[in-house]
């Protein structure tokens, strides 16, 4: 099968990797002059896009076309005939959309007001010198996202900002202020947040659009703790919204799949557009971070290659987290979305959603509902549910950093910048729920860390985790994670499954060469020295050589070899092998 991957960013090459593993031919078509997408533009990224790409770069079945666009598409006998803008015609069976996200640049661009990518290149580790007036910096989050024009949360900018601060602090120690609405962090990032707070980075839960720029810096006016402040910063970083690539609109017209009102692909079933044979991953689905891009890339590559889900290995189901019921009595309810300890913070994403869904149910029953938030995590589409709750009349009270909340016999009191006291019949605390989950083993930490390995769902050597156990989040991700785990298990089995030719035994008959389905075996010439009564004549004979890039791991050669010269492990997956060992 031939698969075209449209877009050479991280999600594109992730799906290419899986498709290659299946033995399919892959053509990556990238519009820009070079592959890498948004990830390659992060100057300080330690892992680097290139690290990932190196692994598949030399694969003979991979073709990368850069600087090319698909102009039109024709369907014939189930094939897609793609016409590129240089007149080339590509024939493929499946298409994976990986068009990615683009960062919308701010309208107030200047030397002192930077976008986050600009700031990133300013503090690039490869730059010798930092600007010497890097003394006082402010970050303004949610610039352009979560608004009437673009209601989604960009889901990565909070995390990205945190890392930028970390990179800054590694080199110099400016005064840093972050203006935020909510900190949409995941997993380990909450620990990073704590570390940054401990190193005197100021986080203020307020925002501003009053910026006056001059030669030396930017004057920002903001309202915090019940008072108005005016401060001058040397640099101001506006953290901009990530929007779908406009190219997606063009592609939707030529392929005929539909987009939703935000410009992202409408999924007919997970990772699949409503046109047969066209799959989608990464930033063409929704704003997501690198790890999720890899995850959806794997999953889409798996489905496009015809993957049907795990057939080997062992599936372990754990019980669902319990449902949450609320009492019928009472007129007013208050939810408190806030925890103090860092570990429990990893549940913000889950309970933000759970609480808001409960709140919506209560509002439907005409109850008065308050949600007091210390922070709330509604990344990408979840933001729409949050918006809906606000529209339906759930009253949200946003606590600033130094505001305290206390509960006292049916009343909830807030002190600090604003003074509020409300009487409520029922109080629901996130803390209580978190306590319940203490004994759950969750893989939370790695929700957002793109490690060197491409391993979005791996727990340890033999286990892949999806759903609640991987990281408590919206259920939409469960299926995606499942297929990603299938793909990952398949990729992991690759290394062990290429058969090995035992040189002493191979007679060079070439049976395996004829048997191989993937033409991965060649007979090579090998020189041999014979010992003949003191004479040592050199002669040569053929020997089988397996190209691991082409081999699909079927094991046919090993079973057919008359000299038993090919060693192959016939157990299906590593998980299988482990359980076999346990049984022994």
């Amino acid at each position: 099968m031939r698969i075209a991957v449209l877009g050479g960013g991280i999600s594109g090459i992730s799906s290419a990797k899986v498709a290659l593993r299946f033995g399919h031919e892959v053509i990556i078509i990238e519009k820009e002059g070079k592959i890498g997408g948004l990830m390659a533009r992060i100057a300080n990224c330690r892992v680097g896009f290139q690290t990932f790409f190196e692994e598949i770069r030399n694969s003979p079945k991979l073709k990368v076309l850069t600087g090319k666009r698909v102009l039109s598409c024709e369907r014939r006998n189930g094939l897609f005939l793609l016409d590129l803008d240089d007149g080339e015609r590509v024939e493929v069976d499946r298409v994976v959309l990986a068009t990615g996200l683009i960062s919308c640049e701010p309208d107030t661009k200047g030397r002192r007001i930077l976008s986050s990518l600009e700031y990133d290149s300013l503090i690039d580790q490869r730059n010798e010198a930092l600007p010497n007036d890097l003394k006082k910096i402010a970050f303004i989050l949610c610039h352009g996202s979560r608004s009437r024009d673009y209601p989604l949360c960009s889901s990565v900018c909070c995390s990205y900002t945190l890392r930028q601060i970390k990179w800054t602090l590694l080199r110099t120690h400016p005064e840093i202020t972050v203006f935020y609405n909510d900190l949409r962090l995941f997993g380990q990032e909450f620990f990073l947040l704590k570390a940054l707070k401990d190193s005197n980075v100021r986080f203020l839960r307020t925002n501003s659009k009053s910026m006056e720029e001059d030669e030396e810096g930017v004057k920002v006016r903001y309202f915090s703790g019940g008072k108005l402040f005016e401060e001058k910063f040397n640099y101001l970083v506006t953290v901009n919204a990530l929007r779908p690539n406009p190219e997606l609109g063009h592609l939707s017209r030529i392929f005929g799949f539909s987009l939703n009102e935000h410009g992202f692909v409408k999924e007919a079933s997970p990772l699949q557009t409503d046109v047969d044979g066209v799959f989608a991953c990464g930033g063409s689905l929704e704003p997501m971070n690198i790890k999720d891009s890899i995850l959806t890339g794997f999953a889409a590559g798996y489905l496009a290659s015809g993957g049907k889900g795990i057939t080997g290995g062992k599936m372990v189901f754990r019980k669902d987290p319990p449902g949450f019921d609320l009492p019928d009595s009472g007129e007013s309810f208050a939810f408190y979305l806030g925890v103090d300890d860092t570990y429990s913070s990893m549940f913000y994403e889950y309970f933000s959603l759970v609480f808001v869904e409960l709140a919506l149910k209560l509002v439907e029953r005409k109850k008065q509902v308050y949600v007091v938030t210390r922070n709330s995590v509604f990344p990408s589409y979840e933001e729409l549910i949050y918006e809906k709750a606000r529209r339906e009349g759930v009253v949200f009270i946003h606590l600033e950093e130094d505001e305290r909340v206390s509960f006292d016999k049916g009343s909830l009191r807030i002190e600090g910048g604003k003074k509020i006291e409300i009487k409520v019949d029922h109080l629901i605390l996130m803390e209580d729920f978190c306590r319940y989950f203490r004994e759950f083993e969750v893989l939370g930490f790695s929700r957002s860390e793109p490690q060197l390995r491409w391993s979005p769902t791996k727990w340890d050597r033999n286990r892949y985790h999806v759903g609640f156990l991987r990281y408590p989040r919206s259920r939409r991700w469960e299926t995606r994670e499942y297929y990603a785990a299938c793909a990952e298990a398949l990729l992991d089995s690759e290394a062990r499954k290429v058969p090995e030719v035992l040189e002493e035994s191979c007679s060079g008959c070439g049976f395996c060469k004829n048997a191989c389905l993937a033409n991965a075996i060649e007979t090579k010439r090998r020189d041999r020295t014979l010992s003949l009564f003191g004479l040592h004549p050199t002669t040569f004979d053929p020997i089988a050589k397996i190209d691991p890039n082409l081999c699909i791991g079927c094991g046919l050669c090993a079973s057919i070899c008359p000299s038993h010269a090919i060693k192959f492990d016939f157990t299906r997956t590593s998980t299988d092998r482990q359980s076999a060992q346990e049984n022994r």
Partner: protein
Amino acid sequence: MLKTERDEIFEKTGQRREDFSVCMGCKICASVCTLNDIGKNVNPQDLLLSIFLGHIPNDHSIVTYCTSCYRCVESCPWRIKIPEIVRAIRERSKGDLFTRTFKSSIAIFGRAYEPYIFFRILPFLLKKGYLRYLPRWIRYMNFSFPPFLLRR
């Protein structure tokens, strides 16, 4: 009861309740508000929050001073029309005798009709002493008939 009061305000703004309740508490409105240029230290979002918490902020300094400059609306990510709320609250509040008279004059005549206003407030003026409510400089003005009347 509070609820009806609240709904009344929203009705007067000509918008739906959800157009206001969608506020996400970013306080951008406070960062740009004109009143903060003149040192009033206000947060327009307060208005929304206290309305949703069930308290009509009749004497909040924004209600008193808002200039309807619409700066907050321009900058608000959700384009929440806070000055409309202010207008509604002002409209709803009874106001003093002069405001009420002025309003009813507009309602009846479609303009500020002085004779009507004069007679409406006459008892008040008489009771309190006529000139007390006129600015001091009026006393020193030369009152004279208009020239075309004098010519006859």
